């Protein structure tokens, strides 16, 4: 059970996150701690690359919804990229795929 959260690029209004490993009840606090500051900044555009995430459960969904709401409340935007079929299904079932910007392809930027 491990997770790696890297902030690859960061400017005043843009950040690119690369997340690798497993997101579950044990690792979710790490992810939350690393990403929370981004949701508090005004007008942040955040791209999170999840192509190296091998597992995520509903706790992980909770972290991303929190991040999504926080970023949106501060006039920013969150995009998730590189989702595997299993991850995509989680966002579909929970109805989040309809309100969040989810792109299964990995893209360089916004």
């Amino acid at each position: 059970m491990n997770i790696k959260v890297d902030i690859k690029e960061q400017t005043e209004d843009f950040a690119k996150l690369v997340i690798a490993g497993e997101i579950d009840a044990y690792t979710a606090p790490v992810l939350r701690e690393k990403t929370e500051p981004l949701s508090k900044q005004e007008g942040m555009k955040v791209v999170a690359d999840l192509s190296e995430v091998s597992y995520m459960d509903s706790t992980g969904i909770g972290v991303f919804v929190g991040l999504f709401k926080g970023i949106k409340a501060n006039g920013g935007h969150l995009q998730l990229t590189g989702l595997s079929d299993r991850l995509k299904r989680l966002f579909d079932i929970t109805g989040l795929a309809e309100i969040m910007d989810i792109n299964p392809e990995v893209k360089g930027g916004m």
Partner: protein
Amino acid sequence: MNKQETLEEQFSKILQEYINNQSEQALYAAQQFSRTALEKKVPPEEVISLQKSAMQELMPDLSPEVWHSFDILLEVMTAYGFAFREHQSLLATQKELKNEMEIASNVQETLLGTSVPEVDGLEIGALSVPAKQMNGDYYHFVHDGDHSVNIAIADVIGKGIPAALCMSMIKYAMDSLPEYRKDPSAVLESLNRVVEQNVDDSMFITMFYGMYELRSNILHFASAGHEPGFFYRYKDKEFLDLEARGLLLGVDKNAKYKRYEQAVEIGDMVILMSDGVTECRTDEGFIERETLISYINEYIELPPQEIVNKIFRDLERLQHFQLRDDFTIIILKRTK
């Protein structure tokens, strides 16, 4: 200081025996001694003092340098002594917390208690098992006379005590909405507003709400981001996804929940579950929905309560009896 003297005597005896004979018995006695000392909460620095005074008695002629060296050892061990006392007090606190958790979990069981209704023409099986002491899954039945049986199954994202507390709130919100009880979309829309307003920003709830109409044998249902259940069509012996789309409770206060319908024939079954069932992790990876279906299929002829019990037993074994998530499964079967 009687206790101290006895310990001193014991220690001195053991030490003397070992110095003279280096026997296994003396080593064993030393192990026994350390157990007694721990029971009596003797801190480590006191054991050093015991050693020093026993040595002074047994070999008073040793050079003063040896005695000085004991003072250093004593000083060093003092910090370990503090750690030891801290450990003792943490153990006591932990025991207290454990007792409180047990009480809380009993209170929760009483608060959230629901009984499986006995309904002519339906057989219902239900099982919910928490991964930890308190359950973040929840199910609830309301038997509304001849009209309908209502089923709610919910899962709080997040586990343990906060999730359990949150569930109690949901239950009371649901109890206070009797006039809406019949319409699944209205129930979810009301609960969504309650969760959005009252619950911590990082906590969300998935819920399936179904109303089984007894006269028409139609299941009306809506889902707030909940793991889709299965519908077993007896006539064709096939399993279909009980697909319903809707957003998690607590994300957007204006969310709308679409109402779906499923006609239920004799022998058909509605199978509902929490994601603890489908996210069951085994040595070979995750259990797929197809695998789960094959398990259910194996017991399909049994009464619903036995099916849920057997599926739980099988999935528990697959996970080596270590549940990672709360586990809930409900089966409703039309018998006539």
